[in-house]
């Protein structure tokens, strides 16, 4: 709950804040901001960071089986980038007064959300192509918008991250191109991956605007500049031509081009599936959290060792200085 504005000062500050947003100014860590604005940002940024971390798992599943040395290196580099993005965004949340450990604890406790797309399994090599093409592609549409977000540190992080995501998307699409032009088995693998990843990718933009509880506030404060449905439409419009170029079929019999709006009109999204996966019953929700918890638990003694060593070293340095 937002605390009631208790003084005239707060009312003045809030008005000034909203005027700054209206002028398109960037809000920086030391600036005054409404508590609710801060909380929305922590929620969004931590979900984003968690998604990067959990996202390492489905792709990591194919590092040891990547079919060529070049593909293996690209995939390793991509997963490494994701760890880097996670770290970078966690650091961003620290500018809002929340530390990384607190957020990681929420993820492990199952109380924090992350992108539901990573609760789907990677079954074939083509899934690595499809994730790069569609999942990173969708992320770019979203993050290009967030790069203009009103909170400076988040916007700047998005600028940097988008550059790398663009590279990942090109790699993923190139995997799909190679498969689509390959043997019949490879082409079937590519189509199957598109069939399985298409709808979950559209769901990445979140519920319809009318069902999105946070959207109004995020739009009002300039954290988001476009609505979920606008972004989803933009992604569909961009992606259809790419699928056609490599002769793959979008798994949507209702898909049609609307001359008047210039949009590709797509069929109904299965929102039951969306909410089921969000609420924990996707194909891999349990596995993903279990993998994160196991890594954390197995690493406990390592972190304890690093802490103990640092303390010993500090004590020795202090002794030497005395």
């Amino acid at each position, binding site marked *: 709950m937002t605390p009631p504005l208790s003084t005239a000062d707060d009312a003045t500050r809030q008005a000034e804040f909203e005027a700054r947003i209206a002028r398109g100014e960037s809000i920086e860590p030391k600036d005054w901001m409404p508590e609710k604005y801060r909380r929305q940002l922590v929620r969004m940024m931590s979900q984003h960071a968690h998604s990067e971390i959990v996202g390492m798992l489905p792709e990591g599943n194919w590092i040891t089986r990547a079919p060529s040395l070049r593909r293996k290196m690209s995939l390793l580099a991509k997963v490494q980038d994701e*760890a880097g993005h996670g770290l970078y965004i*966690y650091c961003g949340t620290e500018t809002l007064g929340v530390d990384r450990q607190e957020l990681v604890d929420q993820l492990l406790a199952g109380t924090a959300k992350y992108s539901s797309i990573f609760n789907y399994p990677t079954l074939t090599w083509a899934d690595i192509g499809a994730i790069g093409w569609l999942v990173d592609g969708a992320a770019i549409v979203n993050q290009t918008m967030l790069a203009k977000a009103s909170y400076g540190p988040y916007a700047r992080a998005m600028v940097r991250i988008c550059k790398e995501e663009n590279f990942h998307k090109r790699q993923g699409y190139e995997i799909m191109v190679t498969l689509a032009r390959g043997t019949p088995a490879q082409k079937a693998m590519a189509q199957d991956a598109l069939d399985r990843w298409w709808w979950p990718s559209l769901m990445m933009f979140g519920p319809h605007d009318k069902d999105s509880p946070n959207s109004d506030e995020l739009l009002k404060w300039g954290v988001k500049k476009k609505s979920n449905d606008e972004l989803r439409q933009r992604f569909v419009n961009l992606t259809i031509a790419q699928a056609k170029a490599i002769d793959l079929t979008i798994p949507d019999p209702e898909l049609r081009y609307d001359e008047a709006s210039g949009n590709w009109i797509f069929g109904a999204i299965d929102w039951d599936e969306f909410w089921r996966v969000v609420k924990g019953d996707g194909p891999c929700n349990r596995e993903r959290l279990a993998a994160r918890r196991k890594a954390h638990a197995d690493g406990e003694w390592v972190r304890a060792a690093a802490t103990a*060593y640092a303390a010993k070293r500090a004590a020795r340095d202090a002794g030497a200085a005395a």
Partner: protein
Amino acid sequence: MTVAAALAPAYARYCQQLGDDRLILGHRVSEWCGHAPILEEDIALANIALDLIGQATFLLGRAGAVENAGRDADALAFLRDDRAFRNALMVELPNGDFAVTIVRQFFFASFSRLQLEALTRSPDTEMAGIAAKALKEATYHVRHAAEWVVRLGDGTEESRQRAQDAVNDLWRYTGEFFLTTSEERALAAEGLAVDPATLQAEWERSVRDVLTLATLTTPATSWMQRGGRDGKHTEHLGPLLAEMQVLPRSHPGASW
């Protein structure tokens, strides 16, 4: 440079051996990706795996070029059976806990750094170039691993014990690094290979210094396992290759 025809088969196998050590270790290290004790180590281990697989790609590429039988780095990585792999046994061992991974990394990187440093002087300018780039990476790998060996050894009682267990378990695989094959001896005479026996004293000195700093005991040398250089591996390599090679093997002739 072109390698003298009489030496080419032996030199190609030597390049394969250099590549295999790094490919197989890179594979093992890559298994950590997403499962490391802290996020910074996810990044570091992925980076190290990436370096090793990059080195392997160059070295196996050089092996294929010298062999001149139409096999590129991918063919050598994905289409050879376990008996044709020449990596040292240590690098194919399962990751174990973080201490085993780090100690193995420390032992191998300390060897690799010395080997690569000597190879920067190879008369094969391609090899000298590959070694010069890889040497920078190996120097970082030694530093990263050595810092962790010290943290674990001089950390908590539990971490000290785990690190000491890892040192004790892996020590018997270190001797193989320094076995000189007859081919290596012949190549070393031409400057094309490093006689690994000449690296052993420096390796032992540098390893012992770090273990001592880490308050760990250097084991007394006893029987050393061997066989990798002759393609006689542990039971761990077969499953590793089955996993690594599955796609190229199940789609013969496909491009990826």
